[in-house]
């Protein structure tokens, strides 16, 4: 869906604004606000990934690494050195961007499977670093004492407050990404996806654009990581493992990668699955994810967000 309408955004915004109030009124779902914070954090990552996979047609199975770099940069600089968390968050995004360029430039020249493996290997290497560099990261035990966030004296120290903070970021990222898609850059990406030969002949710098989207998605993941760290005030390497990168893939596949709303839907559903619905069936968690991914790939290759389109074509027949 290329025309990203203003009405759905407004409706969704209203829903997000009203949600905590609704949650408070219905005791059984009171903890849903907390879950929605995680959903929002994951949305930040899936928005970027959706652009990368759906529009630029690239794959990354190592995005947990960027999520982790953001989280650890924020954690280390604020907990150990006491720097301003907002500056650290920004600095984390810069560090992540630099890493993304270093890794992305040679990787994006690779095709399909090779690219997937390269990102996979990169993700695991970063995970190993988090576990091994105990002096910096606290190793497998993780880091505690990460301060929370506040702005001009207003502290985001309650679940509700942090919820609004995260979702403001999500909406900003959503609108920025939507603007990109509907701009010349978005057209260039779609052109690359449709025909690299023609895109190049029309002046599109293909490797430049692929790298741009890769870095953008990495930076969003870094932001998400920082927000995560400041919310839980504690992080450890197991959050940023290969399985999380695969979970991100599942979110994109389930929601649909050709559509920004797919990123939101996928992140939301998997988050609730993860924190709420599967909570009582922990042993089944992995197998359920595998099944979802497989079924979606076979039966719903355009994801849930792509279903209206399928229904429309179906009716035309």
């Amino acid at each position, binding site marked *: 869906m290329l025309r990203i309408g203003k009405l759905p955004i407004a409706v969704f915004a209203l829903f997000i604004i009203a949600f905590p109030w609704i949650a408070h009124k219905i005791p059984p779902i009171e903890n849903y606000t907390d879950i929605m914070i995680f959903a929002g954090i994951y949305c930040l990552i899936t928005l970027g990934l959706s652009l990368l996979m759906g529009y630029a047609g690239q794959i990354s199975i190592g995005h947990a690494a960027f999520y982790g770099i953001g989280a650890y940069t924020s954690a280390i600089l604020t907990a150990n050195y006491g720097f301003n968390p907002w500056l650290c968050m920004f600095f984390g995004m810069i560090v992540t961007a630099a890493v993304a360029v270093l890794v992305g430039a040679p990787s994006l020249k690779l095709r399909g499977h090779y690219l997937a493996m390269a990102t996979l290997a990169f993700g695991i290497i970063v995970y190993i670093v988090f576990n091994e560099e105990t002096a910096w990261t606290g190793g497998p035990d993780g880091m505690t004492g990460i301060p929370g966030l506040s702005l001009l004296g207003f502290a985001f120290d309650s679940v509700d407050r942090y919820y609004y903070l995260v979702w403001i970021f999500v909406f900003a990222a959503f609108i920025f990404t939507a603007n990109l898609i509907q701009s010349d850059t978005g*057209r260039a990406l779609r052109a690359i996806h449709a025909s690299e030969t023609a895109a190049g002949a029309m002046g*599109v710098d293909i490797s430049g654009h692929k790298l741009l989207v890769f870095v953008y998605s990495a930076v969003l993941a870094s932001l998400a990581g920082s927000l995560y760290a400041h919310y839980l005030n504690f992080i450890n390497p197991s959050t940023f493992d290969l399985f999380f990168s695969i979970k991100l893939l599942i979110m994109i596949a389930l929601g649909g990668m050709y559509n920004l709303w797919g990123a939101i839907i996928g992140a939301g559903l998997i988050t609730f699955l993860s924190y709420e619905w599967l909570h009582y069936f922990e042993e089944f968690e992995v197998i359920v994810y595998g099944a979802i991914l497989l079924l979606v790939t076979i039966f719903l290759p355009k994801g849930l967000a792509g279903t209206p389109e399928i229904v429309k074509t179906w009716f035309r027949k």
Partner: protein
Amino acid sequence: MNFIGEDNILEVNRVNMAFGGLMALSYLSFKVKRGMIKAVIGPNGAGKTTLFNIITGSFPPTEGSIIFKGMPVERLKAHKIAHRGISRTFQTVELFDNMTVLENVMLGCHTCIRTSFLASGLRLPMARKKEAQIREKAMKILKFIGLADKFKDPADSLPLGEQKILEIGRALAGDPELICLDEPAAGLNETETYVASSLIRAINAKGITVLLVEHDMKVIMNISDEIVVLNYGQKIAEGSPREIQNNARVIEAYLGSGS
């Protein structure tokens, strides 16, 4: 009537192209004067599309050089060459089938109207203005090529003849100085061919140099100022349409058929 300049906008200098053991092009040399319509003809497999691919930057030649506006471009990547002012269409239509007719042409403007990443994402007034400019320019081109009323349609919903016209329109959007058309009349019926030829003439009348690969001899004879004939990757004749028509080697190699 078109105005042909004195200078050579394009020079193909002793270009060799070897694919493994196969010599696709063999010491090919010819020049294209600014403002002319030059046709490249030859039997299938003569190396015409390979030549186009080299000129437009798909891959570099094994040997030799391509001089465009006085500067060598044979080692440049395709998108850089596009920015220098060379545009092209493809033998099998390569439209962006995930976009509308208008959007395809708008993408063509990529080389001349650039917006920065941040400006686009933040939708700054400057970005919005440029987007409007692109849209306006693309609509003008659609009017010029006669597809303005289909601007909203998906590009792949057009019949082949119009798709080829659209591809030419997309190639025009970047204000190229040289446009390389790879078999613009292939697969078209008489009416569509007539439309295509008229369009090529109209483009040339605007001062754009045209390099054209084509099999349809009527089209070639009608619109070309000069013709280069290739066979087995070598130039076997070059000259005006009349000269080529009477050239024994050409007749022998090519059987002068077509239409």
